[in-house]
Structure formats: C-alpha cells, structure tokens
C-alpha cells in the first residue's frame, strides 16, 4: 500500500515536473507560494488595519486568487515596532508580507534603536490612501466653518480637547499643524484606535477630532457629527459642503498610506507574484466598492514608484516630527 502510494506520488511529481518543463515554460520560472502566506498586521485584532487585512484575505479566498491560504498574524506592539522588527528578521522570506500605515515612517524615525531601514523592505502595493478631515459634534450649532472653529477653540484655550489616536501619530501631526497654523493651544488627548476617538466626539467627551472619513461615517450619516474641512487636494464626494484646507488658504494635504510591503530581500519572482496578486485584489469589485464607501483615494502604486513614494513621505514625516519636537534634526 505504502509502496504503491510512493509510486503514485513519484508519478505525480514526474508529471508535474514534466508539465512545468515542457508544457508551461514561462510560468515554470515564476514563483508560486508553497506554504500559507503570513500577512502581518501592525495592529491588534479588530483594529482598522486588522479589518482591512481580513477583508483582503476574504477577497483572496472568495475569488481563489492564491493557491495557499493567507493567514493574518497580529503584531500590535510599540506603534508598529514589533511588526517592523518581525518583518526585518524575516529577511529573504518569500512567504511573509505586511500591511502598513504611516507608522511605517514615524516609528523607525522615532526609535532608531530598532535598526529598521524601510528602504530594505520589498515594495508590493499601495492599496489606497486614506484621508483626514476636521470634525466637530453637530450639537455645536455655532461652529459651521473653520473660522467658527478657530474662534471657539481660541476662546477655550488649553481646555479645548482634541482627541486622537496616540502620541506622534497622524492625528497628532495634524493637531500640531492646526495649532501652529491658526495660533491655537488645543490639548491633544490620545486614545486607542480611531473608532474610540470618533465615539469620544459623538459623545461630547472631546471638542474636535481629525478622524478618517470612514471612522466618522456612521455618526455623520446619523447627523451626530459634521466635517468642517478636509486635508485633501480636492473636496471629498461624500462631504460636498466641507472645503479643503487649500481652498481656505492653508495649503496642507495629508494622506495615510494603506500599503502591502514584503519582507526584505524577497526574491524578485516572489515580489512580482505578490504585486500581481494585490493588483487583482485592488481591481476586484469588492475592493473598489470598499474604497468608494470609505472615501479612500489614490491609485495603486508598486515597485520602484512605491519605493520613491516611501522616501518622499519619510522625508516629509521627518520634517514634521522635528518640527513637533519628537525627534532631533
């Protein structure tokens, strides 16, 4: 029995090799994952990044885009530090990819001891760019524009509470920008996760936030909160009445990347395999619908274009962190 099974196996192998060698000469060289793909999440289970990864996992499973399962693995520690170090240690691994946000730039800048150089990672695909708006509770009938907001926040001075998602995070950078651009003294209070921040504003426990549209969408649709202006180049379709900061004289545009990155030193074939895989995910009806619903923007970027984008964004973040005093120049 065992013997015959071995024979069968051998036959199958020979057939496979034969097919690979003669039948499909082009794909024979191409990379195919041999074991489950590990998809590292820089956040805990249930966080924004985690949800996006599980969404992509479902798209891949539903359309059978990969021959092996994709398994998300959460490395939430240290604002992405744990995930970055984990991926760094996976040097040369062809089965580990990671989903990343802007802590991809800020965490290595703030913690040089980690020894993470993002230029070593393999660019796979930028799936979208998330946007930011300035939000207040709809109970504030007196605040309908950024001018009203500035007036109200100035009157309250240090007692104006801006809720955000952690120190030196995207929200913190934007708060610092608003403080210096309009001469405000808003107090920044960090919470765990954008959903929690959105809820603090809806419950009137904070005076304003700089949430992503997706985080406030539920409350916005229920009429609980309202956007005053957005940090985008053009107005966001969902919030036609909210101007961009550019329109009102402060040329400030800020995005958060949602990008798939591969382990450092990944083989070229593997990198192009994942680029192909995530191009399919990007073009799927589900992902396009998700982007529309969440007011996500941006085209897909990959390869050297993505690497250039990273370098540019890292420099911008470096300047911002220096300005806010989080790192030295």
């Amino acid at each position, binding site marked *: 029995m065992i013997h015959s099974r071995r024979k069968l196996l051998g036959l199958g192998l020979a057939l496979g090799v034969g097919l690979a060698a003669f039948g499909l000469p082009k794909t024979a060289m191409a990379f195919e994952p041999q074991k489950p793909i590990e998809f590292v999440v820089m956040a*805990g*289970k*249930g*966080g924004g990044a*985690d*949800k996006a990864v*599980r*969404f992509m*996992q*479902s798209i891949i*499973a*539903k359309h059978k885009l990969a021959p092996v399962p994709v398994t*998300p*693995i*959460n*490395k*939430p*520690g*240290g*604002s992405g*530090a*744990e995930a970055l*170090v*984990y991926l760094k240690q996976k040097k040369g691994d062809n089965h580990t990819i990671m989903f990343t946000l802007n802590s991809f730039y800020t965490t290595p800048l*703030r*913690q040089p*001891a*980690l020894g993470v150089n993002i230029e070593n990672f393999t660019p796979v695909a930028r799936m979208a760019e998330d946007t930011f708006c300035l939000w207040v509770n709809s109970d504030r009938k007196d605040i309908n524009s950024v001018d009203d907001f500035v007036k109200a926040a100035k009157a309250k001075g*240090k*007692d104006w*509470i801006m809720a955000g998602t*952690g*120190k*030196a*995070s995207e929200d913190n950078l934007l708060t610092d920008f608003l403080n210096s651009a309009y001469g405000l003294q808003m*107090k920044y*209070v*960090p*919470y*765990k996760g954008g*959903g*929690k921040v*959105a*809820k*603090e504003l*809806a*419950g*009137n*426990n904070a005076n304003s936030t700089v949430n992503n549209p997706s985080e406030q*969408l*539920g*409350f916005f*649709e*229920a009429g*609980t909160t309202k956007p005053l202006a957005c940090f985008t180049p053009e107005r966001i379709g969902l919030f036609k009445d909210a101007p961009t900061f550019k329109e009102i004289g402060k040329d400030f545009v800020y995005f958060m990347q949602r990008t798939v990155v591969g382990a450092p030193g990944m083989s070229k074939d593997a990198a192009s395999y994942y680029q192909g895989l995530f191009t399919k995910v990007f073009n799927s009806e589900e992902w396009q*619908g998700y982007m529309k*619903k969440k007011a996500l923007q941006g085209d897909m970027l990959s390869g050297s274009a993505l690497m250039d984008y990273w370098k540019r964004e890292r420099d911008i973040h470096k300047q911002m962190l220096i300005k806010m005093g989080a790192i030295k120049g």
Partner: protein
Amino acid sequence: MVEIITLLWNGFAIAFEPVNLMLIIGGCTVGLFIGAMPGLGSVNGVAILLPLTFLVPPTGAIMFLAAIYYGAMYGGAISSIMLGIPGASTAVATTFDGRPLAKLGMADKALTAAAVASFVGGSISVLLFTFLAPPLAHVALRFGAPEEFSLMMLAFATFIGLGGDDIPKTIFSICIGLVLAAVGLDIISGEPRLVFGNITGFLHGINFLVLAIGIYGIGEMLWTVEEHYKAGGKSMMSDAVITVQRTMANLKELLGTWKTALMGSFLGYFVGILPAAGATPGSLMAYGIAKQISHEPEKFGKGAVEGVVAPESANNAASTGSMLPMLTLGIPGSPTTAILLGGMVIWGLEPGPRLFTDHADFVWGLIASLYAANFFAVIINIAFIPAFIWVLKLPFTLLAPIIFVLCLIGGYAPTQDMHDVWLMIIFGIVGYLMRKLDYPLAPAVLAIVLGPLAEPALRQSLLISSGEFSIFFTRVYSAPIMICALILLFLPLLKPVIRLVGGRKTARR
C-alpha cells in the same frame, strides 16, 4: 412595544430558516469546543472562521459567528472548572469556585451550574437587548474616560475581599499584576516601556492569558503533581459520577441561587454595554458582589455554587450587551465583537446609528438568532457534561501531559510568539512558589486584566482635567459610580465599626 414584537417575530422567521438554524446550531457547537480549549477563546475562533462565512449569505454568516461567540462563552467555563485554566479572560472568575468544586468531586454540579447560569444570563440580556437597545446606546455614547476609570475602580473595589484576609499579601499580588500590565506600549506617550532593553517579545505587552495559563495551568499542575506524589500515586482528579438523581438534586440546589443569577445577569448586561469594557470586568464584578452579599462569604473560593453562577450569568449577559455598542455605535465592546464588526463591514452592513433602520431584517434576525443560540447552547452543553466528566476520570499520568500541551498551545495561540511560552512557564513556577508561600494569585490576574483598561482611562481623564481629580466627581455618570466604588473600597474598614455598633445593640437587649 407592539412594533418591537412584530419586528422580533420577523426576525424569528429569518433565524428559523433551515440554513440559518443549522448555522446557529453548528456555531454553538463549534464555539463550545473553541471556548473549552484554553487559549483559543472566542476571539481566535471568530477570527479564524471569518473567511469561511463567505460561503453563505451575510445574515447567516453573522448569525454563525455570533453563535460561536455565544457558544464560546458557555465553553469557557468548562476548562475553568475541569482544569482550573481559564480559556478566556471572561472565564477567570469561574475558576475561583469552579475548580474547588471539581476537586471536591462535584464537577457535575459546577458544570450544570455554569450552563444554567449562562442560560439565565443570556436570556435576560437578550430580553433587555430587545426592549432597551436605543436608550442604552445613548448612555454608552456618553461614557468617556472618567466614567471608564470610575467603573474600573468599582471593579477593583468589589474585589477587595478576594484575596482572603491577608491584606498586605493581597496588595503585593495586585501590584505585581499591575506592573506586568504596564509592560509594553505606553499609550499616552507612545513610547515602549519596561521592555528590558528592547526585547521585542515585550513590545506587545504581557497577554493576560500568559499569566493566567502560567499560574493556573502550569502552577496548578505542579501543585497537583506534588499532592499526587504525597497521596501515594492515587489520582487527584476527583471521580464525579453522573446520575439522574444527582442532576435533579443539583438543579434543585441551583434554584436557590436565583438571586445571584439575576444580579449577575443585570450587572453583566449593563457593564457589557459600555464600550471597551466587554465581558471580563462584568464577570469579575459579579463574583465580587456575590461574595459581598452572601451570607457565607467564607465559602467563596472553596467551592461555593454562587461563585460559579455569578460570573457565568454575567459573562453571557455581557457578551450580548457588548453587541449593543457594536451595532448602534460601530464601537466594539470586546475584542470578539471587534472582529464581528469587521465581518459586517466586509458584507456591506455598516454598523452605526442607522443600522437599525436601514437593515432592520438583519438586526432583528441577529437578535432572534441570539434567542435561538442561547437555547441550543444550553442543551448542547448539558448533553456534553457526561463526556467532560469522563475526561476527568482519565488517570492523572495521562491527564497531566494533555493539560501541559494544552497550556503550551494556549500560551502560544494569542500572539504566536515563543517568547510568551517561555514567559508562561516562568510564571507557572513563580506562581507555584507564591502559592506555597500563601500569596493569593487571583488579585494578580484581576490586576493584569483590569490594569490595561484602567490606566489609559485614568491618564486621559487627568489630561482632560489638567490633573484635577474632581473630574471623577463632577460628571453625571462618573460621580455615582465613583462614590459607590469608594464606599465599597472602605467597607472592610467600616465593618468592624458596624459590628461594634450592632454588638452594643444586642448587648443592650
């Protein structure tokens, strides 16, 4: 009222479609076993099975996942009672009395009590959910950092009597738990702390399960090995027998704990509603209060049935409660509901204030499925009790290695990091030694569970108030909770005074 009943009736029609009904029953069964495996828990179960649900329509899929969540709440008690290892943080309080009961040869009683209490908690909370959802969502929204901290204070205060009478040792144990809870990322400053010179394994902090499985699993096993050795090789796992008579007697005794079950259900539900609290603080508080109001508090920790009834009714009630902020606010009340939330987004059901009007079929189908899941979970659970008891009859030499392997898996599963497995073994040995020296361990576990919830809330509150502690006493919801917490906290100090006054009265008579 009539409208709600009509909507619920429609919901039942959806939940009782054959496919959905099968999914609910299947989910309950899967959840029961996932919950019974230490370390797996509902979070991992729901996360792993999420992509599978693409095979069925969205409503059925979310019913399936909710049934898993529900079944796991039942199952969590099983490993707590039989092995003394809490499978999830929600089942920690169940070990306190469930395990002693099992050791006394009354595992069947503990398991029956857990199942019935879970059923009571689940049923009451689903009723509350059906009729009181929108107004409570408003309260949940108003809960900010000061309210959260007051609630955590209340949870700590209800537990003051937990560590026995040795107050210094209890405080020591709580402090150890709080220090371990502080390892990892400082949410306010965004910096890593207590990572022992950048050991990456410490960056994600110390998961509660690593400590709980370490001291309850590994430590308990070392303890049992020692007792086993002393007893000359006789099995230390008690032989519980199951007969119809015994089961009837157990059920009869359970009737006497109806007050505890009601208290646990209501408390669990209301705590569960609060965003970010989840089922764990609710079950711990229910245990603490059950002990405080009991006529025989000295029995707690040694095998009191109320000590199983209170946390089990509360954690099931809370798991229903935590669906409320998820559905109405889009804010998950627990890690598992966070993943459910992710699932809903994938299926195009946007949770939030408008879900109840935009997708009424889905919402009421889900609520109806909770009634059904609760009903099936209790039947499946009770049906499996003899099988669980049979496991306990395995010889210790066979059972011990199985438990050890389960512990290792349980320590590895949440973070998939070997660092945590080593840490867990160290905690096991240290826990065993602490127990030898008569240090209570439950307060340490309590602290590592509640610490990460309490600390950011305290610091956010003080940041908002510029360092004024008055913030806890000047807000509508925070003030009463904080005052209750302080009264409970100082109750042990006041007790001698009360006794003194009471004693004089009787003397006068």
